[in-house]
């Protein structure tokens, strides 16, 4: 049964990937990319990687198609003509890389094999010891937020950098004319049904984000997913009721500062470890006993992750829509 599900999901992934490459209509490509994200999430789910599936659903199927749509509204919907020779070159390159990838699988340990080195060397300690050392049931969170917390700090900085990069890029293209308020900023403003449903949905979305944020130690979730979901609540509101209404709560400048605060929170928790006489990002002495210390550290850094991810997503959306408003007025 599971084999059939695998085959069906992988088959659909393949079809979707080819369709994305084929599509001239970029709007269709973006929609297909969203489907691709959802299929990947399902496939990760079948493989038992719940946390990864959750992230992929929130990012791959959620926010990234949204941002791509925002881009398309700036660039236009259809792809310009392509050069056949270039296509042939790219195709041969893709086939070469694909062949190498397939070749690599020949000597690969079988999927799920308990004898695989990945299950034998480092992982057993996470499985057997993390409950004693860190004391939270979700081992993935233990690895991400404590054993390899430094990588996660890096990932948060990656997201922060990406947000600033978008800001820096679009700032260098000042929008033509004054931004207009009203209709143009919120294309769906006139749709009464959407507004009513939106009003009903947005509060649960925000509460769900908080649940994902603070429940990450016990179930799938954590700062990354929560941040994305939280941002989606705001973005949805902006689409339905206008960016100017959202800007009254959080402006572009405020969002930038909040994004910075998230990274600083994470970085400072690490420094606290040093003040307690341990190494960077060592939380064990943040409280009386090591396990409580780990808990406090993990909650604090996850909060930093959530804050930065949510504000960077909002920032990117604000900057794009700001451009859009200026462009249409100009």
């Amino acid at each position, binding site marked *: 049964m599971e084999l059939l599900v695998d085959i069906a999901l992988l088959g659909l992934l393949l079809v979707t990937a080819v369709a994305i490459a084929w599509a001239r209509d970029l709007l269709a490509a973006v929609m297909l990319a969203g489907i691709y994200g959802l299929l990947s999430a399902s496939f990760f789910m079948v493989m038992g990687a719940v946390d990864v599936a959750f992230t992929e659903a929130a990012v791959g199927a959620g926010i990234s198609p949204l941002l791509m749509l925002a881009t398309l509204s700036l660039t236009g919907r259809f792809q310009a003509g392509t050069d056949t020779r270039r296509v042939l070159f790219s195709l041969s390159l893709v086939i070469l890389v694909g062949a*190498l*990838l397939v*070749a*690599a*699988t*020949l*000597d*690969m*340990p079988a999927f799920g094999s308990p004898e*695989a*080195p*990945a*299950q*034998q*060397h*480092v*992982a057993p*300690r*996470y499985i057997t010891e993390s409950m004693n050392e860190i004391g939270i049931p979700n081992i993935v969170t233990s690895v991400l937020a*404590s*054993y*390899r*917390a*430094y*990588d996660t*700090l*890096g*990932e948060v*900085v*990656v997201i*922060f*950098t*990406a947000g*600033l*990069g978008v*800001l*820096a*890029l679009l*700032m*260098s293209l000042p929008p033509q004319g004054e931004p207009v308020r009203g209709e143009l900023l919120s294309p769906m403003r006139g749709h009464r049904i959407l507004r009513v449903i939106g009003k009903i949905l947005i509060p649960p979305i925000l509460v769900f984000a908080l649940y994902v944020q603070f429940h990450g130690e016990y179930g799938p979730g954590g700062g990354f997913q929560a941040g994305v979901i939280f941002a989606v609540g705001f973005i949805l509101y902006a689409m339905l009721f206008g960016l100017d209404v959202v800007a009254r709560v959080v402006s572009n400048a405020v969002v*930038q*500062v909040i*994004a*910075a*605060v998230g*990274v*600083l929170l994470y*970085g*400072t928790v*690490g*420094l606290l*470890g*040093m003040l307690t006489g*341990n*190494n*960077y*990002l*060592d*939380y*064990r002495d943040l409280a009386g006993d090591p396990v409580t210390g780990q808990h406090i550290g993990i909650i604090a850094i996850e909060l930093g992750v959530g804050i930065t991810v949510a504000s960077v997503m909002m920032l990117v959306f604000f900057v794009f829509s700001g451009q859009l408003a200026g462009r249409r007025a100009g």
Partner: protein
Amino acid sequence: MLAHLPVLQVILPLVAAPSCLIIRKSGLVWLFTFLVSLAALTVSALLLQQVIDSGVISYHLGGWDAPWGIEYRIDILNAWVLLIVSALGTVVLAAAHTSIRRELEEGQQILFYTLYLLCFSGLLGIVATGDVFNVFVFLEISSLSTYALIALGRDRRALWAAFQYLVMGTVGATFLLIGIGFLYMVTGTLNMQDLAARLPAIGTSTTVLAAFAFILVGICLKLALFPLHLWLPNAYAYAPSVVTAFIAATATKVAVYLLIRFTVSIFGVDFSLSVLPLQHLLIGLGLLGVLTASVVAVYQMNIKRMFAYSSVAQVGYMIVGIGLGTAAGLQATLLHLFNHALMKGALFLALAGVVYRVGSANISAFRGLGRRMPWTMGAIVIGGISLIGMPLTAGFISKWYLISAAVDSSHWLVALLLVAGSLLAVAYVWRLVEAAYFHSPETPDKPADEAPLSLLIPTWLLALANLYFGVDTRLPLAVTEMASRTLFGGAL
């Protein structure tokens, strides 16, 4: 505090970067970033001293033992590269304030400094870490910030250049990640030392070979090895002047470091250079890069682009050194890593001065500049002769070591072609000298109009370093010899 030096090296600029957004005053932000980079420079000097005195430093992040947690592992090789990156990053930053005020809008300046610090910490993080996945994370930080920094260039073509680099760079980073994934699949570890210990037992399975191929191509995209260099000339030419100086002096160096780390320390020389015909590939592509890029450089009209092609050529020299597969060759590469950073730092900072005054880096803008900007042109001439490799400059030392390493391993043809590459460098540097000193300016009798001191001092600091390290070679020689010997001794 001394025990925390390895992590402070990276974490200081990393935490300082978001703080810039909170300070929000561009003059103050510049001062702050400069002080932070000075602190990073101090840390790297102390680290090098510590490694020379008492050997490898291992630092366990989060207090978890490797390979369960992430380890920072500073040996003589990465201490050397850390010093290069932080020294050049600091000197360029000293010049940044003046140049950036002229080239960027008010609102972009704070973003510039934030991105600069992010890129700086990203590069330092790649070098300091002893964990391959951590390499990828910091590679992403440095890459994303570099794309944005390049795109800040005033010329609209900067956007296209940044986009090209983004596509090529992302392919490179993805390949590296695929390779790391395969390595994890066959060894179950991400720690470099642990990988080096476990890989020999696995031998040459196709998964390991594929991992090696993906990692190699990924890194070579990043270091712009011919023919994967196509993103580099435009990126260097259209980026803001100080950004060019910064990435030319540091980013490709870090990629060369990664190549050495993966081929020599992790996979091991025996695997890397003998199982695959890699030796011929590296020497061949390196030489092709030296010759082709140098010829193309001769025909460039934009001087920033000309020196960008020259950078592709210089990367070729470094790759040949690795390809020779001997300790002497590796030492030559490590020497050139340092010396090339000094040359290109001086040259691109001097160009920043020219762009500041003249507003263009086209060859026509250099007519008669020898009289109009004597000090800036003087620095360009010193950087140029160091690039050619004339005696009494730093460039001579590394070329001398490289050519003797080639001769020692009886690669006579290689040695000959390396000399030919230097002659080509004479050709393109001479064009610039000819325009500046032997052509009359377009508007004659213009009084001397030097670049401001805030640009001249950092430029001349690097120019003088080119001369100093051409004479007093004790430090670079001692460090690189130690590094190449330990790497070939098999210890990580």
